[in-house]
């Protein structure tokens, strides 16, 4: 199929077409994340009340009101949603999880669920070794960079025990009214990589060469190249040598296409 196309199309046009498809795919990826970012912006403003921030049960209620509908909406790409941070009470500084998990199929660790369930971290006892959740990338990065961060793809053993991307946005408050805002938590969403794959695959397949979506570290999120499976890492050197890449406008991703003169 690819051979046929290169044979019947003048080379210059073929390259232009391929580049256009690459750009189009980057657009689809951007759109996917722009949607999630927009939702997170909306949630950010909801957990910040007029005089600063919400607390305890009031916080949980507000989070449930946006997280559960977001998970249960038909065709929702999200599998997790909520707020994680300082509960604003005397919980002794440990992070408060107001986090909901969408309906999941049964897997060897977790039973099937047909509606959203709230994450109970204490039930995930094998994760006890994570003594400090705030040191994890999805919390640490928005805190230090003061901006929305995408973690993954990675195996999440805390919520879904599945392969996911996590998008987290910092929520700030100026508690002491000193003009210095501090992050008191993150609002976030989890996306199954398989859902992202479904959304992106048509545009990835339209690229007339092996193609892949890569994160900032060169880790493959979706790929049409059997030799470059999801989760593997494309080294900078190989990327430079054999792949043409376009950065996505939204999200820390790029779409890569194997150069014509570099066979698998």
């Amino acid at each position, binding site marked *: 199929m690819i051979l046929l196309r290169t044979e019947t199309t003048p080379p210059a046009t073929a390259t232009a077409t391929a580049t256009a498809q690459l750009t189009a795919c980057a657009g689809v990826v951007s759109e996917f994340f722009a949607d999630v970012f927009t939702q997170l912006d909306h949630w950010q403003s909801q957990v910040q009340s007029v005089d600063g921030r919400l607390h305890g049960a009031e916080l949980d209620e507000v989070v449930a009101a946006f997280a559960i509908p977001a998970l249960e909406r038909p065709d929702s790409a999200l599998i997790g949603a909520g707020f994680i941070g300082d509960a604003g009470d005397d919980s002794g500084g440990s992070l408060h999880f107001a986090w909901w998990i969408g309906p999941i199929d049964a897997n060897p660790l977790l039973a099937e669920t047909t509606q959203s369930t709230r994450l109970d971290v204490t039930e995930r006892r*094998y994760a006890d070794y994570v003594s400090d959740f705030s040191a994890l990338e999805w919390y640490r990065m928005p805190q230090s960079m003061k901006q929305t961060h995408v973690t993954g793809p*990675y195996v999440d053993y805390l919520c879904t025990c599945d392969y996911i991307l996590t998008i987290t946005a910092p929520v700030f408050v100026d508690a002491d009214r000193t003009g210095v805002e501090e992050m008191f938590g993150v609002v976030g969403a989890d996306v199954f990589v398989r859902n992202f794959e479904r959304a992106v695959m048509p545009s990835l397949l339209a690229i007339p060469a092996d193609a892949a979506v890569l994160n900032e570290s060169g880790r493959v999120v979706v790929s049409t190249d059997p030799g470059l499976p999801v*989760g593997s890492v494309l080294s900078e050197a190989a990327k430079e040598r054999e792949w043409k890449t376009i950065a996505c406008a939204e999200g820390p991703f790029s779409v890569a296409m194997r150069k014509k003169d570099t066979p698998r």
Partner: protein
Amino acid sequence: MVSKSSSAPPSARTAVFSQISASGRVEQVVQRLTDAIVLGVLVPGERLPSESQLAKRFGVALVTAREALSLLRENGLIETRRGREGGSFVTPPHARHGAVLRARLGALSRVDLQDMGLYLSVITAAAAAHAADRVLDSDIDNLRRLVVPELPESDQAAGRAEGAFHIQLAVLSQSARLVRDQIRLQAEFGPLLWYASDITTAGRPGGGAATDSTEPNTVTATCSAYQLSVVDALAARDPRGSRAAVEHHFSDHLAQLLEAKAAVDRGDPLEN
């Protein structure tokens, strides 16, 4: 180490309450909770979930959960207190625990023990090999922080670190299935492995639980050296090296388990 544990390796605690398959449900619930209690995964004084919670978590009928709890009570592994602060509580370790554990090790056939050991070794070694192809430098730094120190605060801490290390290896392989299997198998099999390595080294100089905490004991020193060798192989992006290190480690573990099993079968007295 197991009998003295006040907090068990968490990885072992995982599937203690996960769903149970269809056949011999009462026996399976009893077996799983018995293992968890005698191996110290559930600690003395800990309150078990209620009958209805247990039924839900295991995916069994309420009457099944009730019957299982009643058997555990008869065996002296739990006691039930009435009232608002009531419930089923894990009893303190006593002679019966050792007997239960011996019975468990005695009842398991060599073929099953070896098969479980092989399975755990295969999935862990495969995870280590794939991780070597897929790690970033930041992943290696994170993993290195999980390596058990040669002088851990306790043997339990060493056991925790070992379980955590293997889960993290699976995470670095980027395979959700390997992570789930790792967590699940550790719950089933991990405690027996630790028990075996503890009792087979307890009689040796520097073995088992160190009496002098400034002296590294062989269990933790071996674990520490093993984990460092895996991290180094990953850092060198050497899949063969990381795989071989894991296989060697499990092979040693399994040998200790079979040694303990033989001792039980011969009726030798065991440290517990």
